[in-house]
């Protein structure tokens, strides 16, 4: 992997979510959506370090993780459009989708709830000796949820091959993390579990890959869990429709100067710029094709509504 591949994946995530926003505005997405605009470098850098068979668990803000893990674009659009997608048949929508075929344990719309579940995937890996690791992403605010605490300690004490990525976008919904904890960095909690913690620039896929890679290697060799805190910023609201009146003037504009795609663009020489333009065009076409394909899928058949509650 290298810059063009990372760029392509980040651009795909961005384009996907921009298109999603337009679809939402047009009334084609019934539920609410939580975008990772600006945070793309985290899933892209992190998933670069994973193999097939490694499980990934995310939050409602998990579209980037799904795409970085190779989940199908059409399936994602269709799922959010409430269509009979190959992912979850429209039953999960934006905040709770998953894809066993891509080892994507899935999103979770209960804050913090993904961490115990990811610990479970790590337990399977450990007990079966599969050599797989389990990576889970949560937000900064989720660190204050009891579930996260319990699961981290469990993973530590059982030496589970778990990597916890905390995407610190400095907000939980409309509240600033500095008002929610009395530490500067959330990794200051890592020593309390006896696990390593590292803070990285979450807008730099290489920095993320380096730190997550180290954690993954550690997990894979049986040395237990780690925490990687990736500092980043939301370019958009918490959810579709968030007016963001709580954000100080200029904050978003400043974030737009620092976000991962812009950074690469800024640093690009003319040759690379041309290559990136080409990627943008390809990604746009790909995304548009997925929208078209998704639109062609039927809505789920109400007659099936009682299926799959039980085996």
């Amino acid at each position, binding site marked *: 992997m290298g810059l063009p591949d990372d760029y392509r994946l980040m651009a795909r995530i961005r384009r996907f979510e921009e298109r999603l926003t337009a679809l939402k505005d047009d009334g084609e*997405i*019934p*539920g*609410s959506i939580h975008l990772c605009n600006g945070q793309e470098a985290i899933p892209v850098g992190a998933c670069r370090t994973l193999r097939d068979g490694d499980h990934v668990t995310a939050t409602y803000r998990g579209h980037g993780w799904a795409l970085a893990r190779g989940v199908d674009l059409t399936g994602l659009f269709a799922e959010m459009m*409430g*269509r*009979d997608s190959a992912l979850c*048949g*429209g*039953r*999960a*929508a*934006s*905040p*709770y989708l998953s894809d066993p075929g891509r080892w994507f344990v899935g999103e*979770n*719309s*209960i*804050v*913090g*709830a993904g961490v115990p579940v990811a610990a479970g995937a790590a337990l399977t890996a450990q007990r079966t000796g599969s050599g797989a690791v389990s990576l889970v992403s949560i937000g900064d*605010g*989720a660190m*204050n*949820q*009891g*579930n996260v605490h319990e699961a981290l300690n469990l993973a530590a004490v059982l030496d589970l091959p778990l990597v916890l990525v905390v995407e610190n976008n400095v907000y*939980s*919904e*409309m*509240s600033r993390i500095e*008002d*929610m*904890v009395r530490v500067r960095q959330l990794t200051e909690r890592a020593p309390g579990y006896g696990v390593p913690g590292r803070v990285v620039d979450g807008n730099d896929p290489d920095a993320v890959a380096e730190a997550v890679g180290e954690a993954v290697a550690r997990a894979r060799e049986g040395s237990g869990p780690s925490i990687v805190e990736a500092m980043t910023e939301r370019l958009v609201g918490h959810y579709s429709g968030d007016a963001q009146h*709580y954000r100080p003037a200029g904050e978003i504009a400043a974030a737009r100067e620092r976000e991962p795609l812009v950074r690469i663009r800024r640093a690009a020489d003319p040759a690379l710029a041309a290559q990136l333009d080409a990627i943008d065009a390809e990604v746009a076409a790909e995304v548009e094709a997925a929208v078209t394909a998704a639109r062609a899928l039927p*809505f*789920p*058949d*109400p*007659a*099936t*509504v*009682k299926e799959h*509650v039980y085996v």
Partner: protein
Amino acid sequence: MSESLRYIQAVNAALTWALDTREDTVYFGEDVALPGGPFGATKGLHKRFGSTRIFDTPISESGFLGMALGAAMTGLRPIAEIMYADFSFVAMDQFVNQISTIRYASNGRWRAPLVVRMQQGYSPGACAQHSHSPEAYFAHTPGLRVGLPATPDDAYQMLRSAVASDDPVVIAEARMLYPTRGPVRTDAPVEPVGGARVVRPGTDVTVVAWSRMVSAALDAAGRLAEEGISAEVVDLRWLNPLDFDTVAASVARTGRLVVAHEANLTGGFGAEIAARAATECFADLRAPVARVAAPDVPMPAAPTLQAAVVPEAADVVAAVRRTVGR
């Protein structure tokens, strides 16, 4: 005096009343103070009452509900907000083993005068983790009061009743009703908790409903009237204290009972109403009791599937027709 307010504005008005008239109230939850609440229920309150009275908490539902209990025991009258009723499950111990039990276990020496506000139910495209109607879990927990306002006026009156109550009260609003508008009696005296209400009189069948299903039942009653079926609609309002007398009196008049709620059928609170009727109204019942409820499936997100799950007026109409034998 009556003002025309939206349901969510009525909530806001009741909270304003609470913070304004009772010095012992404090309000807390996630994104409630500076941001004014995700649905605007607390808009303007922080500006008016300041951080001593209303403040934002970390995402720690169990922690802050336990804190509400301790505060209530020692002299405050906290109102805590659970953003979606679904999140009450991460804090369920607070409801079942703490808030509801302390008064009894202390032989009445401690009190827990607190209110937990939440909103519940499906909305288009929301997933299973944001669509629960958990009232049956609370109503099966002795020691809690449980109210589900169906109108803007009740959103106002019942929340005030809850704040005034010396018992712990769960007020579960219906997100889908937030935009609805209606007259609110802003100068009405504060009522004690409890009391069902016949919201439409009728003679052929009693339809007991609460929360969002009250309007569905009224809608159904309107349609049924056109077919010559006279349905009496009872808004149960409070599951605890349960005003079964109003239900029984209605069934004594109509001889038939339909219960409607949005929660899943099995073990829903409709079962309790039907069971009480099967015991206490046995002699009056002229037809099998019918229940209208979501089938026993988690809530799917896709609207086409939701339409097959979420009970609406048409389901009430069908159940009534069956019950009256048409």
